């Protein structure tokens, strides 16, 4: 068994809000093998962005890791002092932000921003940094001449490429990308996805892609983790998880997703909404919306159970997955 590059055990992240404490991430167990491109899928409020920020160590002021361990390549990140943890940032683990207008500092040219990490965090001389910056830009499909430009002079797709170049600057062991292609046009999105795929292969990159878009995960990621209400509910090779989902939530997602090919089946929305994490329910957190719910689901939280090698789901009825899947494809199942 290959040791995972990243191993997360029982991680919890708590926010202090006006209404009290909320555990946006509440007991996450996750393993990312070296060289894997992991897709972290979930809808709004599931905690995936919080999880990504916790891994990076850039949680906002009112949030903290309340329990659990994060082990990156053998190093327990939580046990490090703040200074040591900061030393790892961008060198061992880096971050591609959402393609917002303001993810890159608007007052500095790209060249300056590249130098900031290459010289400041990477000990390269200015000249060496500029050469490397040019190489990185080319690797992501940007003309090195554009290093002279300011971020606002880039189009959305180009800005994403620049952000990716920045993230790869110090050869990190792990890259975390937060919705890297949302908000991009279809054709540009495809180009960026292809570039990421190619880079992943060329550089043997290990990456986590946080997204709500299953199709992007299907295109790009080798491993998939499905997140719901602060916990991972299913994990496994992408092909398996998408073709043979074992958790009812994943089944629901697959049925809610319109496809461009195949019959125009009736889409089935998942009625209801995720639980309020101020007062999380006992037992399975999907129970209130699950068409296959049984009494045990509301009393005991289902332990992650293997359905296939390296593929597990947190559901009491995992053994009947095949039958449930068949039922799940019918829209009637999802109407309460």
């Amino acid at each position, binding site marked *: 068994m290959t040791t995972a590059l990243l191993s997360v055990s029982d991680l919890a992240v708590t926010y202090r809000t006006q209404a009290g404490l909320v555990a946006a991430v509440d007991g996450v167990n996750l393993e990312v093998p070296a060289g894997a491109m992991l897709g972290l899928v979930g809808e709004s409020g599931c905690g995936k962005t919080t999880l990504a920020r916790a891994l990076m160590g850039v949680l906002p002021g009112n949030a903290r890791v309340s329990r659990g361990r994060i082990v990156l390549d053998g190093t327990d990140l939580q046990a490090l002092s703040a200074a040591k943890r900061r030393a790892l*940032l961008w*060198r061992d683990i880096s971050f591609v932000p959402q393609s917002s207008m*303001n*993810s890159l*500092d608007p007052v500095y040219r790209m060249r300056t921003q590249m130098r900031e990490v290459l010289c400041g965090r990477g000990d390269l001389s200015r000249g060496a940094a500029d050469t490397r910056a040019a190489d990185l830009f080319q690797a992501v499909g940007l003309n090195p001449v554009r290093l002279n430009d300011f971020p606002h002079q880039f189009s959305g797709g180009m800005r994403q490429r620049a952000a990716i170049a920045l993230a790869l600057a110090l050869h990190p062991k792990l890259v975390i990308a937060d919705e890297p292609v949302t908000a991009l046009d279809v054709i540009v999105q495809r180009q960026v996805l292809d570039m990421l795929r190619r880079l992943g292969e060329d550089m043997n990159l290990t990456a986590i892609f946080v997204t709500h878009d299953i199709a992007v995960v299907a295109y790009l990621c080798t491993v998939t983790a499905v997140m719901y209400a602060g916990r991972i509910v299913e994990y496994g090779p992408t092909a398996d998880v998408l073709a043979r989902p074992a958790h009812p939530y994943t089944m629901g997602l697959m049925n809610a997703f319109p496809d461009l090919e195949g019959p125009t089946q009736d889409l089935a929305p998942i009625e209801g909404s995720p639980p309020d994490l101020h007062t999380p329910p006992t037992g399975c957190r999907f129970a209130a919306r699950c068409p296959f719910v049984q009494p045990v689901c509301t009393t005991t939280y289902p332990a992650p159970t293997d359905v296939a090698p390296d593929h597990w789901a947190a559901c009491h009825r995992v053994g009947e997955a095949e039958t449930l899947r068949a039922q799940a494809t019918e829209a009637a199942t999802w109407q309460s």
Partner: protein
Amino acid sequence: MVCLTVLILSFGLSRASGNLAISIAGADASAEDIAKINHELGLDRPLPVQFVDWANRAAHGDFGESFLFHEKVSSLIEEHLPVTITLGLIAIAVAVVVAVPFGILAALYEGTYIDVAVGVVALAGQAIPSFWLGLMLILWFGVGLQWLPIAGLDDWTGYILPSIVLAFVAIPVMLRMTRSGMVDAMRSDYVRTARAKGLARISIVAKHALRNAAMPVVAVSAVQLGFILGGSVVTEVVFNIRGVGYLAWESIGKGDFPVIQAVVLLFSIIFVGLTLLSDLVGAALDPRLRGR
């Protein structure tokens, strides 16, 4: 446009209030004396005629003679201007030196006592009229502690109190702008990226947050200098400093029209100029405003 409007308005208003002839001749002058003086000074002509005549001469640099001092207005202004400008520049410097660091601190310690204290100071500074502040400072530091002179500019210490009073015209606004600019910057996506890069906190605050937050503050300080110069009228009078502000107060009180016109024109030109400077500075600092 601004200058012209200001001029026309002030011309009309100053003529409408007060009667210069009475000031010159004395309170119990006879009607004929007043009429005679009015005719001499050309004040009995129709208003538009007076204005056009004045504007014509002003365009050639001739601002006429002060009715009260019997000196050329332009040389009067030349004498009084340097003091006011010096005072104004010192005041804006004080304002920046006080407002910016405290604004940053208030933002970094958002919600704590520091932030609250800074907020109170800003509010007080805005609410307290400058003449009251000036008089209080004179009482405490000048009369009470006798640390600083109470009037005049005999030496450099004379600049201290008036520039503090003037600075308080600008401090509340700049304090709040710095604070909110920094709060926004620290929450921004690019600061989050900077944190993720593992940069030291000082680096993040100074190079990223401050650099972004400062742009509007610097631009606004040029305009604030304009307000400070306006505040110099009251402050110079309180501290008995013979600057353009003092000149303005005197001439308004006595109805010395040529001086009033010239001073008003001066202030409006300065204000418009500072606004333009503010725009230019803003564009220089913010690459997004530069255009292609």
